[in-house]
């Protein structure tokens, strides 16, 4: 085959281009730490990476929702704990007024004040929102009328948040399941106070039974909340486990093999040096050098 000087230069140029391309690719992998920098580098890998990144963002939102829900549930539990103590105190007051009629009037006054406290427990807010009014979060669920009777203004909604693709976490229990559920604590307390004032021991006794039933109601509600918290914890550990495995997937798909990239870089550099050195030799010798 005839080989001309022009071929040598053309091939040199093309080879230099290729070596530079390889060098640049290895360099960008090392500096970015990423296997690919654009979808065209590997479209299906890019599509996977985008999916994994999207899932991370999705999971982060679930975790934010979960934190919010758990903080609200834990807060509710503390509030209900306080409510139980108040109910205990009321029962104690009622029982002591049966044995001691004179304690009745002062006891009744304390029961009235406890009733007011329990109304405010029913109107507890978390981050400025009422937690016992169902989805009525901006208005107090328990309103004391002029005749001191208390009515429930809320509804029965449970207010869940999304904590997984098909998983929701209930974040509150409506007051209609606690304060004004099977036992209306407010009318019970009014009746108790009236019975204590009048020394109606049978009436007091009847209300004590109701108070004990109410204690059960509160305790059931607390068990329910504990169940929600427990579920939240499970979901949280599931989410973080998946975050970990996703992170490792992402790392595997996206992160450049630095050792490989560096050896590729070194190899390309050597190739570049060799190409340049060889290029400098092209046509150094010519027949014309020998013609006298």
């Amino acid at each position, binding site marked *: 085959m*005839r*080989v001309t*000087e022009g071929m040598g230069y053309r091939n040199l140029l*093309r080879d230099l281009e290729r070596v530079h391309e390889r060098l640049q690719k290895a360099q960008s992998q090392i500096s970015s730490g990423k296997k690919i920098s654009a*979808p*065209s580098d590997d479209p299906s890998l890019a599509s996977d*990476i*985008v999916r994994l990144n999207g899932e991370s963002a*999705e999971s982060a939102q679930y975790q934010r929702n979960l934190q919010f829900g758990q903080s609200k549930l834990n807060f509710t539990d503390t509030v209900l704990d306080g409510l139980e103590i108040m109910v205990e105190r009321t029962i104690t007051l009622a029982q002591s007024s049966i044995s001691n009629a004179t304690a009745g009037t002062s006891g009744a006054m304390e029961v009235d004040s406890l009733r007011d406290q329990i109304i405010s427990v029913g109107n507890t807010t978390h981050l400025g929102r009422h937690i016992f009014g169902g*989805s009525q979060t901006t208005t107090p669920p328990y309103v004391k009328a002029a005749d001191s009777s208390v009515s429930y203004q809320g509804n029965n909604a449970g207010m869940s948040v999304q904590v997984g693709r098909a998983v929701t976490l209930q974040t509150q229990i409506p007051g209609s399941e606690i304060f004004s559920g099977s036992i209306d604590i407010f009318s019970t307390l009014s009746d108790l106070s009236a019975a204590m004032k009048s020394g109606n021991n049978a009436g007091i006794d009847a209300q004590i039974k109701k108070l004990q039933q109410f204690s059960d109601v509160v305790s059931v509600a607390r068990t329910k909340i504990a169940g929600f918290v427990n579920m939240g914890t499970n979901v949280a550990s599931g989410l973080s486990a998946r975050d970990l495995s996703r992170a490792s997937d992402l790392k595997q798909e996206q992160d450049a093999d630095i050792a490989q990239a560096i050896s590729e870089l070194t190899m390309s550099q050597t190739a570049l040096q060799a190409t340049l050195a060889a290029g400098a030799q092209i046509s150094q010798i010519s027949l014309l050098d020998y013609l006298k």
Partner: protein
Amino acid sequence: MSILNSILNSSLTSLRANQLALSVASNNIANANTPGYTRQRLVTSPAVLDEAFPSIGTGVDVVRVQALRDQMVEVRLRQETSAKSGDDTLTKTLSDIEVLFNDTDANSPGLLQAMTNFFNSFQTLSQDPASMNFREEVKANAQALIDALHSRDTDLRNLQNRVDQAIAPKVDQLNQLTSQIASISAEIKRQEVDGHAANDLRDRRGELVKQLSEIADVHELESDGDYELTTKDNRLLVFNGVQRKLAVSDVTSSIGNGSLKANLDLRDNYIPKYLNALDQVAYELTQHVNAAHAAGYDLDGDTGNSFFASLGSAADASRLIGLSSSVLADTRNIAASSQSTGNDNQVAMQIGNLLTNPVFTGGSITDQYRSLIFTAGSDLSNSRSNLGEHESMVTQLENRRQVTSGVSVDEEAASILQFQRSYQASARLIQMVDNLLQTTLGMVGA
């Protein structure tokens, strides 16, 4: 005497032929690096026999200067040049487009991130549907998503315009080249009628046709001294000295390859494809969010309102998408509740879940958008690998062209040496004949 004269004559033809051969060689060396130059060679043959002495020739005849051209390689080289130049144009513009859809980096803001933020802000709103802060956040994220869609739409349309505006100048360039080719062809015909091979003009024409091939694929046909240059649908561009101008309106049907074809493809196929996919995303987003939103109740217990301004169809959806006037006016009008009273969060959750809900064409909205990323990425990756392939082909063919037509300076130097010696020998011969003649003349003088 006549024999001596005959030697003198044949030596003279040799002197002339070797001079010519030397000038051909020097012309070759001079053009060693001229693009499109074809190596030339002096073709000689023994001169016609002298009738008186049938066995002795009368020197050397210069037949012609031959250009060593491999027509097959030239044709393929032009085809590959067209393909390479087309892929080059395609790759450049597709790279610009890819940037718009590069969501591979989780930390760089892209359309996907805007989408995720938008739906997540509805999830946050579901924590406290009454919160005005969360409502403002939803609105801000929706606006960011709308802006992201608008800017991608604008960028794609700008690219489409840029590509479209490049078509007319390319056609002008094509017509300029064909006009030059026509005038050179006329000149070639004029020269070759006399039997002179117009090698250098042919080289110049070949180079012009190669430049033309970068813009569009053309076919050359030369028979019986007639030269034709046509497009893929046999539209005549040049016939001998006559140029037929190509009109911009004819390019779609006439151009099958080259950078002009790439521009047409980008304008009519690639960019509309991406725009349609983007419009589809924007349209389905509007439809699904609005459907859920309209069924919900806002803070004032109103229902039936849209979140995004309603769109009639997917056409131009990514340009037209915007917030509805009610949401724009007041974030109280964002419907988060499924009940007319209270601050239920069902609708906010439902809209937030649209991020992963597979109700869109091709799965969830992220799946749908991901397929656009994939398409844009693989279009570019394909055109890039085609470019690499055609570049290699062009290099290979250029090398093959060099095998036949390239100038080797060493070879020319060797020829020069050869012709130089031959010239010297002929000169010596003339000197010798001169000596012989003097001897003869001396005999007469004595």
